[in-house]
């Protein structure tokens, strides 16, 4: 894996390693400068072993998720790359006929061997190109006469022996050289497995109605020389060049030429671009194309690996976010536990900085331990995920997955884990150090001095001013989104933002105090060290701004006025430089309402994001901006004295309403907005947070209801009451834990629900189209009548109720008019490549493929098919053609998509031109129907993997007239009730050499199995986040046992049985986990419903019923709840075992 989110992994690795090294140096510096605080921190680690273990498990989860995502990416990249190298060997480029340049019948698309000799002479002594290897290849059905097993479309290749030497020569699986002569054949491993061929067997090859016998001389590896061209088409065999040339009539010609570069198997890629350029020059004016297929294959492998890593990281973001919350929660709890100790340390003279250092030392102990454990656990998770994919997808995967971990990825995962944890520990340490010594020693709640500016406009202006200055950098950058005006507003803020962090650092130090209060202490020196140690970056980003801030502080520290006029802070908010001066002039002891300030700054950024969302049609910016504005509203209402419950409940509810609005509603006002997978993450985070606000501020409403139901609960009533009431007294930790569980549940539920619904759309019984078996016929051996052909093999045809034939013109052979030129970017061609099917009478009479939209005048689906049976120039198109286009070749100039407005129920029939790129023949067909999504799956089922695309259907006659060179042919069989479709398919395949047969149900089941395997892996991966939420519950419960020891003692004294004490703790955890679970469940299902029914998921799903997979959701919720109860059981048990007398004395 070389890239992540478009950034080079080498740069990411270098950056993260440097950052980790700085962190470790920083901690080493603490150890040297302040060994006492360092030891004080470290010695806390072994104090409570169970708690330490819990903390390490909690902290490791982020590292685990990152390393598992990287491990999966590495595994995929390396497995596919290895396969590309193994298959291609020394071959680097492929020269073949270019039908686009010069249309010609397939049989004539060859390269004369004389031309190859010319190329050899021309490139003799070339530093890049070593050899030219011409070859013949043809897809010819083969049958093993001993096993009677056959394969319909294996690739038969032929290389001249001397030529093949440049690619290492043909060798058997034991490594021995194989020379083929006469009718000898070397079967590759994949084909040998399929037809159970052994050395010495006789194989029958069928070509254009004639059969030829071959004797198996060797079993060879599945490489180019053995007929394996790509991972989807590995089955093949090699024969003597002259024999295949004789069979296909291609004497003195080759189907293509492999070019081998200098540099060996892997090194050849370095010469690929140069070689291609030279070859293209040499072949200029000739109908040939040059593909750097090995280099492209490796790049594709890289792309797939990166794509998977990105998908896993994005899906893992919920877990990573939950992991970060857990780290914060753990350290907030640790700080609460250590409060009296820290207060005592402060009382005896420890500075705030030293408290931070001690806490950081302890945190780094956990951090390093957890990063190592997380890395190893992540590797284990990768192993498990790969195993699940392998067992679920089986041979359908096309690649043999071998688990691989690259040192670079693992170093990045480790470093990212260390950095993320360090940052959270740093913030929580700093927060913990800000304690009131007396309250801390007596373990009393922190009390605040009354603020005379509280709830006043003056206080709000100052808060906003400070918020803007402190967050000037991100706010300034977000203003850039407003365009040129934003640059004008944002630039001064960005400049202030570079100074402001240093200013706030100095503001809290002795250097900023007025002369009479100043002690003999200088400004902090660590920014110097940081600036000097970060070569380059430090000189630009640290030192100059630190010195400016220092200079400003020194300049103004003795000039601070007693107060500011009200209008000044208000004006300062509008004029950033003026605001910065005012902030400098304020007394450091004047209280700032930071929540209001930060909310204001975020609201300004939110406004810019909101505008950017409208301007750029971006859902992400629009909703992020809107959500920030709602947050600001809640905090501001709270600031001005509006009841906390009302402020947060009203704003959170309105925010949820906004997120639930169907796009069809809000897009009427704001125009179309585009979103991608990032919306999944954002919606989860915002909606779950809003939901948690509503719960924690309103759940106490249920308490009177519980009391009213009192007599039903009997003795456990107090346990239920305290189970709800206690969590609500610690809203922060309860809310955080609920968010963690809710987030993961939301993501799992959304995924399961959407998957169930899309499976129902794409993989339902409609997908069989009214047939039971599909037969894919070899391109070179078309069958005129399937029923007769089956009967000729001696197979009973009485179970066949109906047959249907589809002729296929593949995208390389067919083009469709780009009628609406409906592409989102790039060059628009008049025609796009597309798959076209030609249906015969039998197919049209028997098919039950459902129609989504019928043209005016057609009363039923059957009417459509009947009309097509009468008029071969009528056509139906798949729904995907209206929903964004579909082109297997990719590239922005070949996308074909029709305007979705073109087809609705009773639409006006419209025409489409079909063109043969080879001959230029154009035929016009009239579209009278749009097939449902199931048709896409129907047309893909049974198709060879390399041609697996859906397409439009017209009449067989039209297809054959327009595309006379097309050779694709499929048959469908509808069987009489009671016939075993799978067994009949096998029987037919055994008899018919030139066709492969499968039961449609079996193919559908396989498709479902692959989808389920991937879903299971992704859900399992996301489910890792549940461990975070459950660990948080355990941490909260353990802490509650310690905090409430004395109360437990009292409860036991007045008559609580042990079980009741344990029960009350279980109720507490149950309340939190059930709230999180139901929140995630409710939000996930409801949002999935909005997305699915609103047609917002990239596929038009109107008309499809919404399914809630209750059983799967029940299992997910059950596992989450069961696991959380299990984890809380231990703390609950220890609470019940608290010795009463000891607990009552406990302080």
């Amino acid at each position, binding site marked *: 894996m070389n890239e992540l989110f478009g950034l080079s992994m080498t740069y990411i690795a270098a950056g993260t390693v440097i950052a980790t090294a700085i962190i470790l140096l920083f901690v080493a510096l603490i150890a040297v400068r302040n060994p006492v605080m360092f030891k004080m921190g470290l010695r806390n680690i072994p104090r409570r072993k169970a708690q330490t273990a819990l903390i390490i498990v909690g902290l490791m989860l982020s590292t685990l998720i990152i390393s598992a995502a990287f491990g999966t990416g590495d595994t995929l990249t390396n497995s596919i790359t290895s396969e590309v190298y193994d298959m291609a060997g020394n071959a680097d480029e492929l020269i073949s006929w270019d039908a686009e340049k010069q249309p010609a019948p397939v049989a004539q698309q060859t390269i004369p061997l004389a031309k190859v000799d010319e190329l050899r002479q021309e490139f003799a002594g070339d530093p890049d190109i070593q050899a030219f290897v011409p070859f013949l290849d043809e897809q010819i059905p083969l049958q093993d006469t001993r096993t009677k097993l056959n394969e319909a479309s294996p690739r038969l290749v032929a290389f001249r022996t001397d030529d093949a030497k440049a690619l290492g020569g043909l060798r058997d699986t034991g490594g021995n050289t194989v020379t083929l002569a006469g009718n000898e054949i070397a079967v590759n491993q994949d084909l040998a497995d399929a037809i159970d061929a052994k050395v010495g067997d006789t194989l029958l090859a069928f070509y254009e109605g004639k059969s030829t016998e071959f004797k198996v001389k060797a079993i060879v590896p599945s490489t180019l020389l053995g007929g394996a061209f790509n991972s989807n088409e590995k089955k093949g065999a090699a024969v003597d060049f002259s024999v295949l040339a004789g069979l296909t009539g291609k004497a003195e010609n080759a189907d293509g030429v492999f070019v081998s570069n200098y540099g060996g198997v892997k090194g050849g890629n370095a010469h690929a671009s140069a070689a291609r350029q030279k070859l293209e020059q040499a072949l200029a004016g000739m109908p040939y194309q040059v593909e750097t297929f090995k280099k492209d294959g490796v790049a594709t492998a890289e792309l797939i690996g990166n794509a998977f890593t990105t998908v896993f990281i994005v899906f893992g973001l919920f877990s990573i976010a939950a992991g970060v919350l857990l780290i914060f929660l753990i350290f907030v709890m640790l700080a609460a536990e250590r409060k009296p100790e820290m207060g005592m340390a402060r009382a005896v003279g420890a500075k705030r900085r030293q408290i931070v250092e001690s806490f950081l030392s302890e945190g780094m102990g956990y951090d390093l331990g957890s990063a190592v454990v997380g890395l190893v656990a992540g590797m284990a998770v990768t192993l498990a995920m790969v195993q699940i994919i392998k067992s679920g997808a089986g041979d359908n995967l096309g690649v043999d997955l071998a688990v691989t971990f690259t040192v670079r990825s693992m170093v990045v995962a480790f470093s990212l884990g260390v950095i993320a944890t360090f940052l959270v520990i740093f913030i929580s340490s700093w927060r913990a150090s800000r304690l009131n010594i007396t309250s801390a020693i007596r373990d009393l709640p922190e009390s605040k001095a009354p603020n005379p500016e509280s709830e006043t406009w003056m206080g709000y202006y100052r808060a906003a001013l400070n918020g803007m200055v402190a967050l000037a950098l991100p706010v300034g950058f977000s203003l850039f989104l407003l365009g040129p005006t934003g640059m004008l507003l944002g630039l001064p803020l960005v400049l202030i933002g570079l100074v402001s962090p240093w200013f706030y650092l100095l503001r809290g130090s002795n250097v900023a105090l007025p002369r009479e209060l100043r002690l003999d202490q200088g400004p902090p020196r660590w920014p110097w060290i940081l600036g000097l140690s970060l070569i380059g970056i430090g000189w630009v980003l640290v030192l100059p701004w630190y010195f400016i801030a220092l200079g400003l502080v020194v300049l103004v520290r003795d000039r601070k006025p007693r107060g500011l006029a009200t209008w000044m802070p208000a004006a300062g908010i509008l004029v950033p430089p003026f605001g910065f001066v005012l902030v400098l002039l304020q007394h450091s002891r004047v209280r700032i309402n930071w929540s209001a300030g930060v909310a204001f700054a975020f609201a300004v950024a939110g406004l810019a994001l909101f505008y950017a969302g409208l301007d750029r049609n971006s859902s992400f910016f629009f909703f992020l901006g809107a959500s920030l504005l709602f947050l600001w509203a809640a905090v501001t209402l709270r600031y001005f004295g509006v009841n906390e419950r009302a402020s947060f409940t009203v704003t959170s509810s309105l925010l949820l309403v906004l997120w639930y609005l169907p796009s069809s509603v809000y897009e009427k006002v704001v125009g179309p907005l585009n979103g991608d997978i990032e919306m999944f993450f954002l919606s989860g985070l915002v909606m779950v947070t809003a939901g948690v606000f509503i719960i924690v501020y309103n759940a106490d409403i249920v308490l009177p209801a519980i*009391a009213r139901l*009192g*007599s039903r609960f*009997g*003795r456990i*009533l*107090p346990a239920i*009451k*305290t189970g709800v*009431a*206690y969590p*609500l*007294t610690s809203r922060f930790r309860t809310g955080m834990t609920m968010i963690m569980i809710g987030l993961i549940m939301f993501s799992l539920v959304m995924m399961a629900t959407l998957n169930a619904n899309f499976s129902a759309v794409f993989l339902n019984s409609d997908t069989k189209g009214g047939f039971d078996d599909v037969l894919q016929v070899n391109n070179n051996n078309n069958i005129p009548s399937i029923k007769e052909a089956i009967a000729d093999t001696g197979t009973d045809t009485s179970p066949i109720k109906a047959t249907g034939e589809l002729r296929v013109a593949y995208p390389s052979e067919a083009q469709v008019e780009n009628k609406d030129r409906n592409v989102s970017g790039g060059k628009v061609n008049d025609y796009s490549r597309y798959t076209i099917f030609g249906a015969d009478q039998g197919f049209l009479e028997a098919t039950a493929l459902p129609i989504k939209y019928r043209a005016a005048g057609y009363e039923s689906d059957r009417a459509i098919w009947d009309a097509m049976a009468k008029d071969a120039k009528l056509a139906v198109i798949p729904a995907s053609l209206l929903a964004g286009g579909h082109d297997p070749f990719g590239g922005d100039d070949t996308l074909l998509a029709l305007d979705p407005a073109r087809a609705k129920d009773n639409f006006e029939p419209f025409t489409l031109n079909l063109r043969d790129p080879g001959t230029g023949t154009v035929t016009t067909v009239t579209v009278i129907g749009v097939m449902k999504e199931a048709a896409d799956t129907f047309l893909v089922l049974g198709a060879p993997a390399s041609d697996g695309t859906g397409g439009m259907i017209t009449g067989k006659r039209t297809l054959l007239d327009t595309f006379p060179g097309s050779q694709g042919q499929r048959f469908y069989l509808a069987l009489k009730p009671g016939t075993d479709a799978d067994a009949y398919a096998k029987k037919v395949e055994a008899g018919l050499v030139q066709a492969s047969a499968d039961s449609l149900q079996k193919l559908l089941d396989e498709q479902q199995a692959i989808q389920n395997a991937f879903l299971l892996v992704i859900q399992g991966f996301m489910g890792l986040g549940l461990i975070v939420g459950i660990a948080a519950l355990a941490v909260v419960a353990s802490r509650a046992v310690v905090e409430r020891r*004395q*109360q437990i*003692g*009292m*409860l*036991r*004294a*007045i*008559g*609580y*049985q*042990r079980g*009741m004490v344990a029960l009350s703790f279980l109720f507490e955890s149950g309340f939190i986990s059930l709230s999180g679970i139901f929140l995630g469940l409710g939000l996930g299902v409801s949002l999935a419903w909005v997305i699915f029914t609103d047609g917002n998921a990239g596929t038009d799903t109107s008309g499809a019923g919404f399914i809630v997979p209750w059983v799967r959701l029940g299992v997910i919720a059950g596992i989450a709840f069961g696991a959380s109860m299990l984890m809380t059981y231990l703390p609950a048990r220890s609470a019940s075992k608290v*010795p*009463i*007398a*000891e607990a*009552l*004395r406990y302080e």
Partner: protein
Amino acid sequence: MEPRQDGKREFGEVVIDARGVVKTYDTSTVEVRALRGVDLQVRKGEMVAIMGPSGCGKTTLLNSLSGLDEFDSGTVFIEGTDINRMPDDKKTEFRAKDMGFVFQTYNLLPVLTAVENVELPLIVSGTKPKVAREMALKSLDRVNLRDWANQRPAQLSGGQRQRITIARALVNRPAIVWADEPTGALDSATATEIMDLIVELNSEEHQTCVIVTHDPKVAARCHRTIHMADGLIVREDSQAQMVAVAAEH
């Protein structure tokens, strides 16, 4: 044992009968002999104060007598039942029905209202919630806190909180009320008010009270005071003697 008379009041039969109670704390590094064979008898309706210097074993004795803590040897009979032989469940039930506790640090549940705190022992011992609520309100009435029934502890003063713990201790009409430094966290005026209340309730309800205290003024309000030192009872004073001692203070 014959009924005993003290001043104007006559006390009933012995309800607490402790003999040779020994309790040792083993902290793995040091062994502390907290009680070295204590003998104590308390009669029904009697108010007994336990005094002594810090670490002499007062609270340990109270915890051992009330069944909050186990002891190593000796016997404690409460209303004729050997408390040390009771299984934990029975002991807990016994506490819920027949004992009330008042602690220095109130130990009220902050998440429950005053009335909910008071009704707690009733509900856990199986009383119907409606009945429990009525009894709790009556009990709050007794301590003059009926109007504060729906307030949470954080909204009340120290004296009010201690009155709630007394209401809670008395709500199930226990035979014995155990109080560990009930006035320790209160100013002297509030402490006097609380002791007035305890004495008043004792004279009206005839409950037995065992009070651990440092304060001679509190001890002077009890019918007799036993003095402890080094895990043993070393002296016993009558109410009159303690009144004199309190006056000296």
